[in-house]
C-alpha cells in the first residue's frame, strides 16, 4: 500500500464556541450606549429650553454691545414646536374658553429673554443699535418693520423678509426700558386668532349698532 494514497477524512471544523458571557457583553454595551444616548438627548433637550435662537441672541448682542455695562440674566426660556405640540395635544383633553384655546392653537414656538443692566447708562446710541441689529438680522433674512426710540427707551420689531402667510408667521421683538432688556420671539399660525378677532369685531359692531339704535329711538321719543 502506498502511503501517499492515504486520504485523511476531512472532518468539518466547527468554530470554537463563544465564551459564555460574550453575547451578554455585546447586549450590555448596546444597552449602555442607548441609555447614554437617551441621557444626552434629554440633556440637550433640557439645555435647549434655556438657549435662545440665533436671531434673539443677535438682537441681544446688538443692544448689549452698544450700551455696554454689566448685565444680569433674569430669565431666558425657549419653547420649541415639539413641546408646544405636546401642550396643544394635551389641552384638547381639557375644556378651555375660546380665546386661550385660540392662543394655544396659534403658538407653535416662543422664546423670551429678560436681562437687567446693573447701572444706568450714560446714553443710548439708538442709531448704532439699529444699524447693528438691522445688519445682523438682514443677513438672517429679517427686516425691521417698526423702530421707536425716546430718551433711553427703544423698541424694534422684525419680520421675515419672505412672503408672510398667516399660517406661518414669525416675529422678533426687542424692548429696552428702565434698564430692562426684553427679547421675544414667536412663530405660529395666526388663523385661529384672526377668527377670534373677527368674531370680537362683529360682536363689538353689533353692540355699537344696538346702542346707536337705542339712542335714536330715545331721541325720537323725546321729540
Amino acid at each position, binding site marked *: 500500500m502506498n502511503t501517499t494514497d492515504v486520504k485523511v477524512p476531512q472532518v468539518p471544523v466547527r468554530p470554537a464556541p463563544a465564551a459564555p458571557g460574550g453575547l451578554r457583553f455585546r447586549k450590555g454595551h448596546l444597552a449602555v450606549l442607548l441609555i447614554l444616548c437617551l441621557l444626552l438627548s434629554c440633556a440637550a433637550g433640557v439645555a435647549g429650553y434655556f438657549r435662545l435662537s440665533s436671531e434673539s441672541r443677535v438682537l441681544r448682542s446688538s443692544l448689549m454691545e452698544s450700551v455696554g455695562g454689566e448685565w444680569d440674566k433674569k430669565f431666558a426660556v425657549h419653547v420649541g414646536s415639539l413641546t408646544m405640540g405636546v401642550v396643544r395635544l394635551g389641552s384638547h383633553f381639557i375644556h378651555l374658553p375660546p380665546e386661550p384655546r385660540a392662543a394655544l392653537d396659534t403658538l407653535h414656538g416662543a422664546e423670551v429673554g429678560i436681562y437687567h443692566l446693573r447701572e444706568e447708562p450714560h446714553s443710548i446710541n439708538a442709531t448704532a443699535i439699529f444699524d447693528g441689529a438691522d445688519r445682523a438680522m438682514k443677513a438672517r433674512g429679517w427686516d425691521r418693520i417698526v423702530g421707536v426710540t425716546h430718551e433711553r427707551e427703544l423698541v424694534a420689531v422684525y419680520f421675515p423678509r419672505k412672503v408672510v402667510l*398667516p399660517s406661518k408667521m414669525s416675529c422678533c421683538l426687542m424692548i429696552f426700558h428702565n434698564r430692562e432688556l426684553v427679547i421675544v420671539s414667536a412663530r405660529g399660525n395666526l388663523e385661529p386668532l384672526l377668527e377670534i378677532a373677527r368674531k370680537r369685531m362683529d360682536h363689538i359692531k353689533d353692540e355699537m349698532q344696538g346702542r346707536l339704535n337705542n339712542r335714536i329711538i330715545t331721541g325720537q321719543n323725546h321729540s
Partner: protein
Amino acid sequence: MNTALWAADLLPGQIDFGSFSPSTGGGEFVEVNLPTSLISLGARLVEKDEPEVAQLLNGIKLVRVNVLALDEDNRADIQKRAQKIRKELADKGWERIVAAQQKDQDVGIYLKMTDKGTVQGLTAVVMDGKEHAVFVNVVGEIKPEQLALLGEKLHIDPLKKLGHTAEKSEKKSDDKAPEKAED
C-alpha cells in the same frame, strides 16, 4: 434701517426719503415700514365686515412712516431734506392736493396719479412747528372710488373730493370712448 434705494428699485409712487437716524438728544423717533404681506394680513382681518376697505388695503404695496423729534442738532438738516423732497415731488409730476401753512406748521400732501386716475402713491410731508417732522409714503394702486374711501377713513377732505372728481372724470372718458369708436 438702510433705506437708500437706487432709482430703478423704486416702485411707481414710491419716494426715497433717505435714511433717518434718531437724534443724539434722545428725542422721539418712529420708523414704520410695512410690506405688502403684512398689509394683506390687515386686509384679511376686515374683509368680512368691510370688503371695500379690504380691497383698498390689498392694493397697497408699501407704507412708510417716519416721525422725528427736532432739536438743535438735526432741525436744519431735516428742514433742508423736507424742502428737497417737496421739490423732487414737484419735479416728478406729483400733484399737491393739500398745502397748508399755519403758524409754525407746514403741511403738504401729494399724489402720484396715472392717466386713468389711479393713484400710485401718496406722500405727506409735515413740519410741526420746530418740534416734529413727519414723512409718510403710501405706495400702491388705488382707484378713484377707493381714493374717496381712503379720504373718508383718514378724514382728509381734499382726498375725498379728489376721489369723487377723479371718479367723475374717469366715467366721462369711458363714456366718450364708445362714441369715438362709433365715429
